[in-house]
Each structure stands twice: as structure tokens, then as C-alpha cells.
């Protein structure tokens, strides 16, 4: 029977929640990477390793790796630096394994690559040295590269996202990068939207596609059908254009989930103090509110950009974690929800993997 492994990154370490394919009863192990703030925890199906993007005010930043589902961990930050004559790298925000390599998104925004399972890292200079770099300004969370989306089959192609900067694409392994932000509103900037300056919060490739992307932005939800060259707004009936998380169905390119939050000046909470996830089944043509089992009063939840995961079971499960320490799980694509953990430290990330039992 397959195992469902939920990897949760928190302000005080990583936690692993595990269930079977029923997703009814969950065990919790942790904290791992103690003392480190974990912004992302992810699974590499190519070798069964778990990676964690970690930062400590005492010990700095590192990427942790467990080869055995959390039993043992190693860590390294060798090469994960810009150099003594450049700004200090302050935090690792994202770790993404792809095509035999591991990528790390960091703050100040930049991209690093490891070809030895995280033991050593080298800097992808092409992105940091992009001609638009002088115009990169931090968002509320900082100048952070928080999303790495690998192409499913081409190892030289990927997209990355940086807050208040936007989406970039490379087709040559990171040597050259092209901004991909046309059509995305930048309501906080006077005048026409700039080539860079778009505040992407999260984006992902649609299932089975190498061209269709969904994006949750500061200013709405978007879809692109040409690899990010152009974006079309699909915010529609959502109660707020603002939110952080985005989840995509593992097989249906028309289905995605978001979790709208109130605008920044209103607190970035679940609207009306009622928790709800919204789902589209038609590529953003319409949205339905899903809240069965989620708190519907006095629930001012804040859910950060990395804190939603979708599993690959036949009826996909959807999961999200709140900064107030709760993890919510649905085993039926969001139709119904249960709180499966209540008292974790502030949650920054939720990811999920289905592993052979």
C-alpha cells in the first residue's frame, strides 16, 4: 500500500506527517533540522531523498538532505554564497530537484545548482547578472527567489519566480534569461506594467503540459498557454485577487486550487474570518468555494506561498498549512477537509509525496 508523506517546513524545523492512501490517520515525526527555519521541504523521487531549505540566525543558511525519510540528515552550504565582495546570501527559500540536479532559490534573489545531491553548489550567474537587475526591488517578504519550475523533459529549460520582480525563463541551462510577465497587472506601480516588477507569489506548470502555467500573483490569478510569454487574468469570482499558494492537479491541466487572502492592508487573512480553498475545473473559467470541514468563524488564517501541496493519488489529496500551526488535509480534491495537525510551529511550506509502501 502506498505511503503518503507530507513534508512541512516551519519556523522551528521540519516535520514529517505520514498516512496511507486513505489519508485518514496521520503520524507526526519531528522536528528535524532543529533550530533552523525551514522555508521548503521537498522529495526527490529519483533517489528518495528529502531536501530542506534551511536558515538559522545562529548558523546561517544551508540545504539539509535526508536519504532515509528523515532518519538521518546531513547539511551543506558549500558554494551557496555570492562571494565576499558581493551581498551576503541571507536565506534559502526554495529547493527543487530536477533532471539529476538540485536547485536552490535564495535571498537576495538568485539561483544555485548542485550536481552532487546538495553537497556543493554553484551560482547560476546568468540570472543574477540579468540586465534588469538594478530594477529588482524587494517585496514585503524580501527580494527572494521562491519558485523554481523545471521543464518536464528539457533539462536546459526552466522558469523561476522572484517576489516583486517576476517570472523569468531560461532555455539554455541558465546562461540567458527572459522576463515572462506580459499581461500581469502591477497596480502598485504608476504607469504601464514594467518588464520586471511583477509580484509573482507562486506559479506552476499544468499537468502534462510544457506550456500552460498558472500563477497566483499579488494582483490576481493568471494563466499562460505559451510558456509564460503572455498571461491572461483568471481571477474572476475569487473573493480576493491576493493570495499566496497555488496547487495544480497531477493529471488534469484544467484543475487548480488557490487560497485567497485579504489584501495586505487588510492583514493577509482568510476573508471574513472563514477559511476556504477555491478550485477551478476549467482552467480558470470559473471558481468554486470549498470549505466543508474548514473553520468558518473566527478563523484569520494566513497561508504562505509554499504551504500547499497536492498528491498524485487517483483522487488527489490537497493539503495546506497555516502560520498558526494547523495542517488541513482533503482526500477528495478539496470537497471536504480535516485538521490533521493543530500545534506545529508557524508553517512556511507543505509538500507531499506518494511513496511505494
Amino acid at each position, binding site marked *: 500500500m502506498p505511503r503518503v508523506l507530507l513534508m512541512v517546513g516551519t519556523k522551528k524545523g521540519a516535520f514529517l506527517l505520514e498516512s496511507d492512501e486513505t489519508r485518514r490517520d496521520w503520524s507526526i515525526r519531528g522536528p528535524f533540522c*532543529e*533550530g533552523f527555519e525551514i522555508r521548503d521541504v521537498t522529495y526527490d523521487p529519483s533517489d528518495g531523498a528529502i531536501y530542506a531549505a534551511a536558515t*538559522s*540566525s*545562529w*548558523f*546561517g543558511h*544551508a540545504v539539509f538532505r535526508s536519504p532515509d525519510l528523515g532518519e*538521518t540528515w546531513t*547539511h*551543506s*552550504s*558549500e558554494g551557496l*554564497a555570492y562571494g*565576499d565582495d558581493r551581498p*551576503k546570501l541571507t536565506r534559502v527559500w526554495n529547493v527543487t530537484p530536477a533532471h539529476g540536479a538540485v536547485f536552490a532559490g535564495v535571498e537576495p534573489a538568485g539561483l544555485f545548482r548542485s550536481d552532487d545531491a546538495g553537497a556543493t553548489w554553484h551560482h547560476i550567474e546568468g540570472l543574477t547578472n540579468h540586465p534588469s537587475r538594478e530594477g529588482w526591488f524587494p517585496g514585503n517578504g524580501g527580494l527572494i527567489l521562491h519558485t523554481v519550475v523545471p521543464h518536464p523533459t528539457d533539462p536546459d529549460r526552466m522558469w523561476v519566480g522572484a517576489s516583486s520582480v517576476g517570472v523569468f525563463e531560461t532555455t539554455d541551462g541558465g546562461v540567458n534569461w527572459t522576463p515572462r510577465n506580459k499581461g500581469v497587472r502591477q497596480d502598485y506601480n504608476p504607469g504601464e506594467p514594467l518588464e520586471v516588477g511583477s509580484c509573482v507569489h507562486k506559479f506552476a506548470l499544468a499537468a502534462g503540459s510544457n506550456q500552460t502555467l498558472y500563477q497566483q500573483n499579488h494582483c490576481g490569478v493568471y494563466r499562460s498557454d505559451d510558456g509564460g510569454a503572455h498571461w491572461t487574468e483568471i481571477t474572476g469570482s475569487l473573493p480576493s485577487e491576493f493570495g499566496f499558494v497555488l496547487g495544480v492537479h497531477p493529471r488534469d491541466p484544467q484543475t487548480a486550487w488557490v487560497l485567497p487572502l485579504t489584501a495586505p492592508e487588510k492583514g493577509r487573512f482568510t476573508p471574513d474570518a472563514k477559511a476556504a480553498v477555491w478550485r477551478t475545473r476549467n482552467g480558470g473559467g470559473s471558481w468554486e468555494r470549498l470549505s466543508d470541514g474548514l473553520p468558518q468563524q473566527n478563523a484569520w488564517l494566513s497561508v504562505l506561498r509554499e504551504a500547499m501541496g497536492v498528491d498524485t493519488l487517483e483522487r488527489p489529496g490537497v493539503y495546506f498549512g497555516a502560520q498558526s500551526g494547523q495542517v488541513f488535509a482533503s482526500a477528495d480534491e478539496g470537497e471536504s477537509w480535516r485538521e490533521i495537525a493543530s500545534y506545529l510551529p508557524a508553517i512556511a511550506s507543505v509538500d507531499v509525496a506518494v511513496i511505494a509502501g
Partner: protein
Amino acid sequence: MAQVRLPTALVTLFPGTPRRLVLPGETVAGVLASLEEQVPGIHDRLFASRLEIREHIRIFVDGEAAGLATPVPPRSTVDVVLAVSGG
């Protein structure tokens, strides 16, 4: 040679590392270089850059606050302490 005392939170990151080691070095920098030889990778946990100890870590020699250039007399004690400002 100096006795070096390390905090639990640091040695936890390097399984098998004792909290107390005896290491050579004429300065704090020298002792920490010896520490890196014994515990590969620990330098990155202590240093923010090549020549700068991390902000929330303090080094003491025989109970006195020290910098990288501080001399370490023979048989002295070098403490690596996690500042209360961190964590």
C-alpha cells in the same frame, strides 16, 4: 593547544562531534581552522564570510570576549557561544 568548548546545538549538526576538543592554534582564527580540519563543514556554520564570524555567535578566550586575531595562549579555553540574540 587549547581546549575548545562547543555548544550542543552546533555539535548536533555534526553527529559524533564531541563538545570538547583540544586543538592547536595561536589565535582564534588558527584554532577555528584546526576545528574545520577535525569537523569538515563546521566553518560554514561559524563564519558569515571568509573572515567574519556570524553575528549571533560569540567567541571567548579564558572568559574574555575575543575576535579572530585574539591570541590563544597554551592551555587556554576557547568557548564558542550562541548569543541570546539568535535563535
